């Protein structure tokens, strides 16, 4: 039995099917509360589906998700912040036709319907938006439409939008994919800084250099099932992982 105080997310027999395809197949896994966890596996192994299930973007077909000791058979997307979870997406999903500034501001505002009608922008919202944009290096681009930013800038802005939520747990779906080295270093710095601030970071990556360097814990998926998990160097040295997934 997993120590619930040491895990932030624990899934039991988590399942998601798309027709005959078992994208996530009775997956039982525990993610530690501290440090960085990386999820790896070949294309189609169910990594993004797993993250989508944890954040409520996709409905569960079976199983339980336990978040901070609370068991859920139904995970609703709009309840993610209540569970202390926020995320980024594999394909960057910004609010394209509004500015970078507004992309941050929008997630800082009132969530209840009626009070939101009467809420105007508060100085605290502005301060948070400015702090986050500066942290991800996007302050100079604050007035640019999100849809007009470069790919790397869009990735940074999406991470910034997640950071503005000040959640306990961050699910980053391939945050390093497609970035040129300078931008990649910046995202690495952000991830390390967030870990040092006590947040839980879970990211999917295909970049094995990053996987060797950053995470403390590694989960390897294959065909929607857990292949192996554990301390990074230990997992990476296991024969089945080397042969089947890393090609080394």
């Amino acid at each position, binding site marked *: 039995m997993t120590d619930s105080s040491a895990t932030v997310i624990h899934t039991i027999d988590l399942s998601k099917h798309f027709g005959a395809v078992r994208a996530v197949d009775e997956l039982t896994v525990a993610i530690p509360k501290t440090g960085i966890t990386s999820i790896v596996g070949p294309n189609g192994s169910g990594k993004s589906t797993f993250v989508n299930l944890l*954040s*409520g*973007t996709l409905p569960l077909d079976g199983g339980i998700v336990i978040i901070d000791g609370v068991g859920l058979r139904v995970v609703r*997307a*709009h*309840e*993610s*912040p*209540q569970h202390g979870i*926020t*995320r980024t*997406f594999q394909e960057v*999903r*910004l*609010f*394209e*036709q*509004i500015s970078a500034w*507004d992309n941050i*501001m*929008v*997630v800082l*505002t*009132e*969530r209840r*319907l009626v009070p*939101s*009608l*009467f*809420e*105007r*922008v508060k100085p605290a919202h502005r301060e948070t938006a400015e702090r986050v944009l500066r942290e991800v290096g996007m302050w100079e681009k604050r007035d640019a439409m999100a849809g007009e930013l470069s790919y790397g800038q869009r990735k940074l802005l999406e991470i910034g*939008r997640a950071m503005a*939520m000040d959640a306990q747990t961050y699910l980053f779906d391939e945050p390093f994919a497609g970035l040129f080295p300078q931008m990649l270093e910046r995202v690495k710095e952000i991830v390390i800084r967030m870990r040092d601030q006590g947040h839980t970071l879970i990211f999917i990556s295909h970049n094995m250099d990053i996987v060797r360097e950053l995470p403390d814990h590694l989960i390897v998926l294959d065909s929607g099932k857990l292949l192996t998990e554990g301390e990074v160097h230990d997992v990476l040295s296991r024969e089945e992982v080397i042969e089947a997934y890393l090609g080394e």
Partner: protein
Amino acid sequence: MSHLAQAIRELGDSGPLRRMPRANLERIATVLVLGWAVGFMLWQGAGFTITLTTIFAIWAILAVSLNLVVGFTGLLSVGHIGFFGIGAYTMAILASDASYDRLRTESIPTPDWPFFAALPVCIAIAGLVALGVGVVFNRFRDDIFVLVSFGFAIIAFSFFLNLRELTRGAFGIHEIPRPAFGSWVLDGEIEFLIFALICLALVVLICWLIVTSSFGRVLTAIREDEEAIAVFGYRVTHFKLAVWVLSAMMAGLAGALLASWTSFIDPNSFILLESMLLIAIVILGGLATIWGSLLGAMAFVLLEEGMRFLPFLPPEFVGQARQVVLGVLLVLLMLFRPQGLVGRYKL
């Protein structure tokens, strides 16, 4: 044909209208439309100006309210005319003082309520119908949403035409009273115009408060990506339903004004074509901008009424010509200026 399509696409992608700085285009569009309005009114005199401005006020309420749904939230509804009709019919049924028992047509009860007693009911019923319809519509998005809203417009028209025990069907309802404050009845055209403009100002103020609030900011995020905004803790269905109902209530107000102003309504005022014209106004003026809807409504009214005076156009073809001109205008806008004259958002 493919060369022509390519040429049009390239022209649209790199055309001067798209390249023009937004502020410049806004200024030019505003000056042109306002100049056109002033010139037209000076030419036609006070009487026609009052009529034209009253029509503008009613269409502008409709356009501004529809823009909340289409421009700010990204729900392309072609069913707004249904709520306009519900407001108009509610006013007609509650306030008409015609004694239909004496007429050998359809007999309906006419409670003969004063305008201001019926007005809140018009707004509330439009809102309640929107709530019921919206609960069902909330599960649809994009193209499917357009289709179901289209279905709503057709169903609403069918009710107006066939529910004769309530609406008198094609006979319509007449003797709908003007607003009255005690013994002071706004039966003069200028008094009614002022009242309609006050209603428009209130609607514009409410819409401005909505779109500049946190609620409005969430609406724009829903328009851009409703799945993404949901994971940040927003109940998207609630926000969509709320703006849908608010917008319908404003359309109900516009309908009540129309019924009172014309003193007669029949189902022909609420056909699907009117909904398409309304969409054209909103796109023409600009999506996600209140000023754009006002400008679009003004341009539409000037275009519609101005075509009466074209010397080469026989009067019997004016109606059809208006539809052709607006249709062509809509196609040109989609090609060269999809965000409209002063819009901020492309469909």
